[in-house]
């Protein structure tokens, strides 16, 4: 892509006035395999390419896209986006300068280009490992999805920066049956990596893990209902932060004054043990980015430090509104969508309260929450839920029985205030999370040490 070409289109985008314009070029290739019950049922994949054109006039955004890299079609999109600023004067000439982004991930060979037989072999390993676990495993399904995105952002303030974004993700699900009882378990992982991910985490691990959870659930009993202490295992439980804290700190909600964290910068919003970070620089992690989707090189954001709210996450529009430096949290699903403030890899820093066992030992009756399938938040009142798919009852400081899957519900600031222990056993969750906001999905990462929350509402059935 030629800078002069970008300059011409940007000048056209600002021809009606407007404060700022950017172009987001995207070339996305994907390759997927799905295995059902031991057989590769479908091979799939495709190519998607296009350019999004955005014109910003004050707080208003004009947006259009072309599903093509032809100059005339992109220019037409620029004319459409420019209408937002109609009535303004003619735009100035635009110059962009090529910039390099740091490299925080890379793949020897992108998984999209990996040999088909090698990809099939991975699914077979996962399938076999799950079936080997027990004769009670009656069905296994698995999928492997590889995506390779090349993006280039050019903006009227001079940016011209490209990135290659590889991604691989495996998912395995297993069904276990004993008598009339049927239960399921699943496991998944990956990141901004190539197939070398599987040198560290073999595909068979996800097969074994899916089978293990399904088998544990065969013995699960109904969970209790009501408020009680909850110990969250290291790793996946970072989903709690993502929902309870993360979304409420995306600056667009605070600019619009719709978040319950509005006007709370500098105030205490969590227990002093809590430090929460959004870090786009974690090597190879699913949420990492070398450059954000507005062309900014992102920094590490310390959101909550020692329980005090320090920062929101900004895109260009909110950074200008709050008079902050841009920090690179502008992300989008594809060239068909305008960017907005989003999380990358959100985690809680390790504390000093020891191991999982040390923390479980302090609970006389409560829940140990190990694996989750997802969550949701209402950013206005701060209520959040997350779904537990592997959990255990704690009685007198010991794990006693597996529990059926339940929802946990809490209120963001209240729950964070009740974090009474933070373990020293920090772990990143393996890369499998996708975050949805306003109809746009982006890959994210989460991480967490083992923590204890003194009271969350457990949505079981036993009163």
């Amino acid at each position, binding site marked *: 892509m030629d800078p002069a070409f970008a300059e011409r289109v940007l000048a056209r985008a600002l021809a009606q006035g407007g404060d700022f314009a950017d172009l987001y070029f995207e070339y996305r290739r994907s*390759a997927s*395999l*799905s295995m059902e*019950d031991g*057989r*590769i*049922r*479908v*091979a*799939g*994949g495709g*190519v*998607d*390419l296009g350019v999004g054109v955005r014109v910003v006039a004050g*707080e*208003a*955004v*004009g947006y*259009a896209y072309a*599903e*093509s890299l032809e100059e005339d079609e992109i220019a037409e999109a620029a004319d*459409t986006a420019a209408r*937002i600023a109609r009535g303004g004067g003619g735009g100035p000439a635009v110059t962009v300068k090529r910039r390099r982004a740091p490299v925080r991930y890379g793949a020897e060979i992108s998984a999209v280009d990996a040999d*088909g037989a090698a990809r099939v072999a991975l699914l077979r390993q996962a399938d076999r490992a799950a079936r080997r676990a027990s004769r009670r495993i009656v069905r296994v399904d698995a999928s492997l999805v590889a995506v390779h995105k090349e993006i280039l952002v050019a903006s009227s303030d001079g940016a011209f920066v490209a990135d290659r974004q590889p991604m691989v993700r495996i998912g395995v699900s297993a*069904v276990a049956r004993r008598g009339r009882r*049927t*239960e*399921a378990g699943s496991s998944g992982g990956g990141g901004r990596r190539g197939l070398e991910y599987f040198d560290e985490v073999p595909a068979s691990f996800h097969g074994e893990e899916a089978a293990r959870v399904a088998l544990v659930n065969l013995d699960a009993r109904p969970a209790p*209902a*009501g*408020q009680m202490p909850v110990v969250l295992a290291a790793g996946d439980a970072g989903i709690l932060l993502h929902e309870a804290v993360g979304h409420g700190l995306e600056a667009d909600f605070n600019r*619009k*004054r*719709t978040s*319950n964290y*509005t006007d709370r910068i500098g105030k205490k919003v969590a227990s002093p043990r809590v430090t929460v970070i959004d870090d786009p620089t974690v090597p190879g992690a699913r949420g990492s980015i070398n450059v954000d989707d507005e062309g900014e090189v992102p920094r590490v954001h310390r959101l909550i430090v020692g329980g005090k709210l320090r920062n929101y996450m900004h895109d260009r529009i909110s950074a200008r509104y709050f008079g902050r430096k841009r920090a690179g949290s502008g992300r989008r699903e594809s060239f*068909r969508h305008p960017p907005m403030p989003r999380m990358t890899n959100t985690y809680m820093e390790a504390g000093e309260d020891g191991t999982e066992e040390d923390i479980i030992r302090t609970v006389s009756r409560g829940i140990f929450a190990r694996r989750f*399938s*997802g*969550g*949701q938040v*209402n950013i*206005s*009142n*701060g*209520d959040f*839920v997350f*779904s537990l*798919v592997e959990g255990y009852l704690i009685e007198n400081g010991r794990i006693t029985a597996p529990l*059926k*899957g*339940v*929802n946990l*519900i809490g209120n963001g600031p209240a729950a964070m205030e009740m974090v009474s222990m933070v373990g020293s056993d920090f772990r990143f969750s393996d890369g499998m999370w996708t975050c949805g906001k306003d109809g746009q999905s982006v890959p994210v990462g989460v991480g967490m040490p083992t923590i204890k929350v003194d009271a969350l*509402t*457990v*949505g*079981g059935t*036993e*009163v």
Partner: protein
Amino acid sequence: MPVPRRTERRMQALADLAQHAVERLRALGADHCEVGVASGRELEVSVRNEAPELVKEALSSGMSVRVICGERVATSSTTDLDPDAIEGFFCRVLEMARLSEPDPLALPPDPKELARRIRSLDLFDPRTDRIDAATALRRAQRAERAARRHDRRITASEGASFGRSSAISALATSGGFLGTAAGTYQSLAVQAIADDEGGKKRSGVYWTGARFVEELEPPAAVGREAARRALRFLGARKIETARLPVVFDREAARSLVGLVASCVLGDAVYRGRSFLAGKLGEQVAPSFVTIVDDPHLPRAPGSRAYDGEGRATRKNVVIRNGVLETFLLDTYSARKLDQPPTASAAGGGSIPHATTSNFFLRNGRKKPASLLRGIDRGLYVVRMMGFGFDPVTGNFSRGAEGFLIEGGACTVPVGEITISRNLGEILADIEAVANDLDHRTAIASPSVRVAEMTVAGT
């Protein structure tokens, strides 16, 4: 209303493109194939504090292909419809098929089973594409203004948005089917915010949507309802953990019906991911419960004349008078389960799987308000959160917001609670169905009352 001549010509062009693709794929070596081509136009605007915040306009088009070579399946899609690019795309799809493994069940339907005549369902409003950005912004502004002026306690606004879309599509298959379809949809949504104690905010969302412009509710009415919905939650609190009767308003009930839908789709059933698997012919709900998948409702959002494999669609009664009568099946899942297909295949050219059209719980006779009658202490649920549902077991546990029912009437607002029970038990324990069904969404339900659920709070 007939589709305008100009639109018909564009549909014919898509049909030619799809037909040509089938011929090329066959020539390049595909034993069977399905090709879907679609083209859409959309406008999306939003305003906040009455100032425009976003105007987004786009045209899009794309092709999806499913090929079968020697019982091996591959699927792919592209937005690059340039003739040279397409030829390369076809070759890559055929190449991909070598990775999958032969499966005799994957063959397409017998050509004799494909639709010959395409039913007209009145899904296209020629006025939709003519709504320009200025008109759309005005509608959104009127709606938001009505929300902000409704009450002084409305302190902020997430804004109002108006969107319109139109899509035309064609499907051609190597079995000889060729069909075209056209549809429009528009919607207007408002989210109002009220300040509550302790820094909490209460949001209220309301929206209207329809295939025809004239069927939208007036903007001011949408705004006022959003404001009312924010205000009614002021002072919401938790309640004590208890087993209570629960009334779901129609929007909350819709998500229960959606969960039932996910468990009657053929793929879920043959993969062992449905608590309803193996229950055909059994009484799964009281006799006044009937759940239907009807693709032929005129002007409804989920209507369609043919399915993703080219079969003529038909109305399927999934649960009749409480008895589970059929699952929703595409060709593959029908063969897996050894049952007749129900013309429920998704997409055209995507990985074949079953899907719903207009899937709804049929109206009962009771007025919604009468569902509360006789409840001494209970919960009225208007909003649910989270994904706490396990299709394999039917275990259901989700966050809920609503009102405490005392002495047969709603009293205080409640939140930060969960409701849970097994969906199979919930279905069996439905006590009453109201008569307030609306088809604004493809999955729909009237209000329902369930005899008992566990409500977890303090």
